[in-house]
């Protein structure tokens, strides 16, 4: 509790409080990170750093993830910034374009580790050729399927679906098992879960979603409509649990491990979770497909770590970035926790070798995309934004899909134009 009291308020009480206030640890670096992301991973990374750097420990503060963007903006506008910021990677361009982050290009240009760092993370950390951040952790989406339910439904557990039509066909069979089992899962109230798991279905089908800037046309390609039609039909056919409609993301990660869902798009984090939840469940992992067999895609998500303008500890922050990308951290922290390594050349390690599922998921990195836009939250991630509204209308209404798409386009363009 550090109380910075102005000379203007010297009431007796304020003085008293200042006396009992603990002095701030001057040598700690302050770092902000969004809560609810991959807290366990970030905690472990910071703990590993603190063990090695007792004289310049990092003090971590989690900000509720819905408030991360305004919190960062307020901090920057007021000059009261932390020394380091972990942020959802898709918000990178917004802050880079506004000139609010420290340009680290010259300090890191000789690092060999950057050559193999996750491409999507590097792309959103770059603005007009200058670099502003490095990967903090990576998540990729893939298709998880329940082999036990495949067997029960008479499907080959070694042949996951390779197209949307096959997903539909298999889902129908699994749903037909009855009871509380459904073939697929589509989250109805979670914008982030949908861009992570439904977005790739559209990309794989050759479509684009978000506009890069004010001049870019959003939602291009037939894939958008094809995927929406497919999703609408899936829900109409009863292949999705009814309460999926209210899925805000709070229980998304628990769905697959419940053992009641045949297939669903989710992320690599679900490997460890599903095992904890349901140790006896046999499941497999494939790439998220498109309309045609052979089309695949994935969303590379996660966080980047950046330095806000006004940070007084730039060199220490750069050292932390170096530490994150080092071979030892990649293997002994990331891989050991069965998390994606943030460098492509580090996937061949002893921990991944012992866990084939992680290797399967790691294949997604090669086909993964990361949206690059200055208005990601408002366009895509906001529960109140046009992306989720479009999906909800497609999933649960009967309005003509062309109408829904053109209205979503108009909304997205209006947001991008501001």
């Amino acid at each position: 509790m550090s109380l910075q009291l102005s000379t203007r308020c010297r009431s007796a009480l304020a003085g008293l409080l200042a006396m009992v206030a603990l002095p701030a640890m001057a040598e700690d670096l302050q770092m902000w990170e969004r809560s609810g992301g991959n807290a366990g991973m970030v905690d472990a990374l910071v703990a590993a750093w603190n063990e090695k750097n007792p004289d310049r420990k990092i003090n971590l503060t989690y900000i509720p993830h819905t408030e991360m963007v305004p919190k960062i903006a307020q901090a920057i506008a007021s000059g009261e910034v932390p020394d380091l910021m972990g942020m959802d990677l898709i918000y990178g361009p917004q802050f880079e374009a506004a000139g609010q982050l420290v340009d680290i290009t010259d300090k890191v240009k000789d690092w060999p580790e950057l050559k193999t760092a996750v491409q999507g993370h590097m792309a959103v950390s770059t603005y007009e050729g200058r670099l502003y951040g490095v990967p903090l952790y990576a998540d990729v989406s893939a298709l998880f399927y329940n082999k036990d339910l495949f067997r029960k439904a008479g499907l080959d557990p070694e042949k996951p679906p390779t197209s949307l039509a096959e997903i539909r066909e298999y889902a129908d069979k699994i749903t037909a098992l009855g009871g509380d089992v459904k073939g697929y899962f589509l989250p109805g109230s979670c914008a982030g879960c949908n861009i992570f798991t439904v977005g790739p279905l559209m990309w794989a089908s050759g479509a684009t979603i978000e506009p890069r800037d004010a001049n870019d046309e959003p939602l291009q390609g037939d894939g958008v409509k094809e995927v929406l039609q497919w999703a609408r039909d899936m829900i109409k056919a009863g292949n999705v649990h009814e309460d999926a409609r209210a899925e805000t993301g709070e229980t998304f990660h628990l769905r697959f491990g419940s053992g009641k869902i045949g297939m669903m798009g989710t992320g690599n984090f679900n490997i460890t979770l599903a095992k904890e939840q349901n140790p006896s469940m046999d499941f497999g992992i494939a790439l998220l497909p498109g309309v045609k067999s052979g089309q695949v895609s994935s969303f590379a998500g996660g966080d980047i770590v950046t330095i806000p303008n006004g940070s007084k500890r730039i060199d220490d922050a750069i050292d932390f970035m170096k530490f994150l990308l080092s071979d030892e951290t990649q293997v002994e922290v990331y891989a050991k926790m069965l998390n994606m390594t943030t460098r492509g050349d580090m996937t061949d390690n002893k921990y991944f070798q012992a866990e084939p599922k992680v290797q399967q998921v790691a294949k997604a990195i090669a086909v993964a995309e990361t949206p690059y836009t200055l208005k990601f939250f408002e366009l895509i991630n906001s529960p109140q934004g046009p992306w989720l509204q479009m999906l909800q209308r497609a999933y649960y209404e009967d309005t003509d899909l062309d109408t829904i798409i053109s209205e979503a386009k108009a909304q997205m363009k209006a947001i991008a134009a501001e």
Partner: protein
Amino acid sequence: MHSKTSSYVGLLYVAPALAFVLTFTVYPLVQMVWMSLHNWSLIAAKKFIGFGNFVKAWNDPQFWTSLEFTLKYTILITPVLMVLGYLIALLTAENRPLRQFTRSVVFAPVVIGLGASSLLWYWLFSYDFGLINRALMDLGVIAKPVVWFGADADIALGAVIVSIVWKVVGFGTILFVAAIHAIPGEIGEAAMVDGASYWQRVRRITLPLTAKTILLVTLVSVIGSLLAFDQFYIMTAGQPRNLTATSVFLIYLNSFPYLKLGYGAALSLILAGIILVCTCLQMLLSRRSHA
């Protein structure tokens, strides 16, 4: 009284509060008015756009959706709160142990925070984990669990109203009880002699003599409902499709996550204006009932 002393003495007593309000309410409010004339994202330079934000609000379908929803919520919840609060007040007005105890219990939720109570009800209404679906299923009222939040705007609104009625009905009850106690005893006695029935006496004596309090509680409740935010932020998050996003919710969205501070400020001024009009109407009503 102190009427002989100079008016400055009175002003001196009010000065600290006035200075505080001028610094921490009026000054930010003036800044907000100034912000509303700009396009400002916090992380980029401000741009003066005159009344552009107000024009934008007029043309923004979400602004109207939110306003309509806020009014709907206010119009639905206010009578429920008033009638229930008054009935419980009539039930517990007499100072006897069980009734006093009931009064205390009804008031108890008023003292817990809106955030805590909203989270509590969010859990009770939860599809899988909530006791409400479980209890309704066990009682045979519903055949399968209901998706309370996120699917149907009206169902979500109903659920929110239930939680808020539980939370604040006691506030009205306590004030109504006080008003009933303040009715001079002789009036009731006289009516008793007339042989009027209980409900006749409530209608002819109790209600008219507590009208001022009813108006006051209505006003507080209406202002509170027009400014509703926490319960929707926590329970519905505006879902489905922003149909349950109240006006303040929209203000919050623009002022915080969307970083459209000017637009958020303009929306706030419009809402404050609407509340001011409602308050003045109530005051006029109150004056008339007084006469």
